[in-house]
């Protein structure tokens, strides 16, 4: 029997099958939201991926044009809902650039602390759901358990767990709670061993490595040409982080490393590298947090908040290193209280555009592994 099959294969030089189109999504657990991928398959090999977006499109940019500058902040929360603090952070410093105001040192420190806590929280979701996509459910639960602790810190500060409206133009809405610094230090102490635990559980797991190493390799020059930023670009071995390369706020005062992908399990720029960069980044964020919590000065957090935000005629492009990459705001002011145009350069949107390049030639099952390693948030892709 076996012999006849082998004979058959030999007599047919190529086993070309018909091309087939397969729809993945919009309701597919691995797309982390509503994204439809149109896969052009030949057998089980992916020849082309066409993402179809827009299922969550709310036209944030149109909303922003009829709001005053401070009223836009809650809308920015709802773009990248896993990193709301950082969206506000980016928007606030862009408008401050337009207004040409300087905020008190304490505010800058609070923003950095919130931003880095948010980065850890966001990476925890990215790593946990990535494990879940590939079939490891336990790390997902562990990650969410730890993320809850960060969300509780946010709740203590501003009353909200997900959508904060905390970082305002010129300041922050509330000063830190008297217990905050103690609890944040406790969290750092608690979280360090959890990273090791996650490494044991998932990072060095044989099955996980088999599924992710050498899958979806992204060379650095392709990444730059596609505008890919954040952990994805660093996973490709490029040392590029806006906190270091174009410092904003008080990031130039802290000592931290920029981890890059080294191809430890396969090739530089594969899915495992992108995953591991996020793990290392959480440790760097802990370092920044420790320094910021130790150095934070006293001061008034609301002294620089303008009574009325009415910037002069002009335009500005401000950018920050969001957990997913370069988050840019291009704001045009016509001198009124409403922005004339707000364009958001969303990191997920740009990172997702490289999907076709990554998936070509891989199996269908690898599409899930690649999509998870990009770490998209559909609220931000569609805005």
């Amino acid at each position: 029997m076996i012999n006849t099959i082998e004979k058959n294969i030999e007599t047919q030089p190529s086993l070309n099958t018909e091309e087939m189109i397969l729809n993945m999504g919009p309701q597919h657990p691995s797309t982390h939201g509503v994204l439809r991928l149109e896969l052009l398959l030949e057998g089980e090999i992916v020849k082309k991926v066409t993402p179809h977006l827009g299922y969550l499109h709310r036209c944030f940019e149109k909303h922003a044009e009829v709001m005053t500058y401070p009223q836009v902040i809650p809308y920015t929360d709802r773009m990248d809902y896993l990193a709301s603090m950082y969206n506000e952070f980016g928007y606030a410093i862009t408008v401050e650039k337009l207004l040409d105001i300087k905020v008190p040192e304490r505010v800058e420190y609070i923003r950095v602390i919130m931003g880095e806590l948010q980065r850890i929280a966001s990476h925890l979701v990215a790593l946990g759901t990535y494990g879940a996509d590939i079939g490891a459910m336990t790390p997902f639960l562990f990650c969410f358990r730890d993320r809850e602790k960060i969300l509780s810190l946010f709740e203590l500060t501003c009353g909200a767990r997900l959508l904060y409206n905390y970082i305002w133009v010129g300041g922050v809405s509330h000063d830190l709670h008297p217990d905050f610094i103690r609890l944040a230090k406790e969290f750092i102490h608690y979280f360090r061993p959890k990273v090791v635990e996650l490494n044991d559980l998932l990072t060095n797991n044989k099955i996980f490595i088999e599924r992710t190493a050498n899958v979806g390799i992204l060379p650095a020059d392709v990444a730059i040409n596609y505008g890919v930023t954040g952990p994805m670009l660093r996973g490709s071995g490029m040392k590029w982080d806006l906190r270091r390369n174009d410092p904003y706020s008080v990031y130039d005062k802290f000592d931290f490393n920029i981890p890059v992908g080294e191809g430890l399990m396969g090739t530089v720029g594969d899915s495992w590298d992108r995953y591991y960069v996020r793990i290392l980044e959480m440790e760097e964020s802990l370092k920044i947090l420790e320094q910021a919590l130790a150095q934070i000065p006293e001061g008034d957090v609301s002294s620089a908040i303008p009574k009325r935000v009415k910037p002069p005629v002009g335009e500005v492009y401000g950018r920050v290193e969001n957990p997913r990459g370069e988050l840019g705001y291009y704001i045009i002011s016509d001198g009124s209280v409403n922005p004339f145009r707000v364009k958001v350069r969303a990191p997920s949107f740009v990172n997702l555009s490289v999907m076709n390049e990554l998936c070509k030639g891989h199996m269908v099952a690898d599409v899930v592994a690649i999509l998870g390693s990009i770490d998209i948030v559909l609220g931000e892709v569609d805005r």
Partner: protein
Amino acid sequence: MKTSEEIYNLLKEKFNNKIIELTSAASVEPFIVVDPLIIHEVCFYLRDDNDLQFNSLMNLSGVDNANGEKKPEVDGSITISGGTLSVVYHLESTELKHKVILKVFTPRENPEVQSVSDVWRCADWHEREAYDLIGINFLNHPDLRRILMPYDWEAGHPLRKDYKNPEFYHGMKVPY
């Protein structure tokens, strides 16, 4: 590392009158205005020249300048005729650590700009977005379809300043 002024002079030398002006005011980051039908060539030069090496397109945005003639309608909305739309390019060199901003202006009635999606692949989706939301037509774009709005949206381009919401979309009431 070069300033916008040095880059402007270099471009002016190479493309002479197709590079229109360098604008810099106190509250505006300086930008270079380029002819929309030569932007592709200019971008190739900016990317590939050894002294410039603009290998990264940070952002590409379409803008409705709303500087035409505004006519109020009976229902309170406005219609704009004439004037310009523009596209703004924020470029950066990760090698030489400098940045520059380019702008093109195109007439509102027939907005045509050369696509730069083969210079930076990143521009592909940004240009689709500008086409979708503002209605700028990118020449030689490989796949100019709507990206955020439904493919069969017939009511125009929502980020135009005189956009009116349609009453129905496939028989469904829009302002529900």
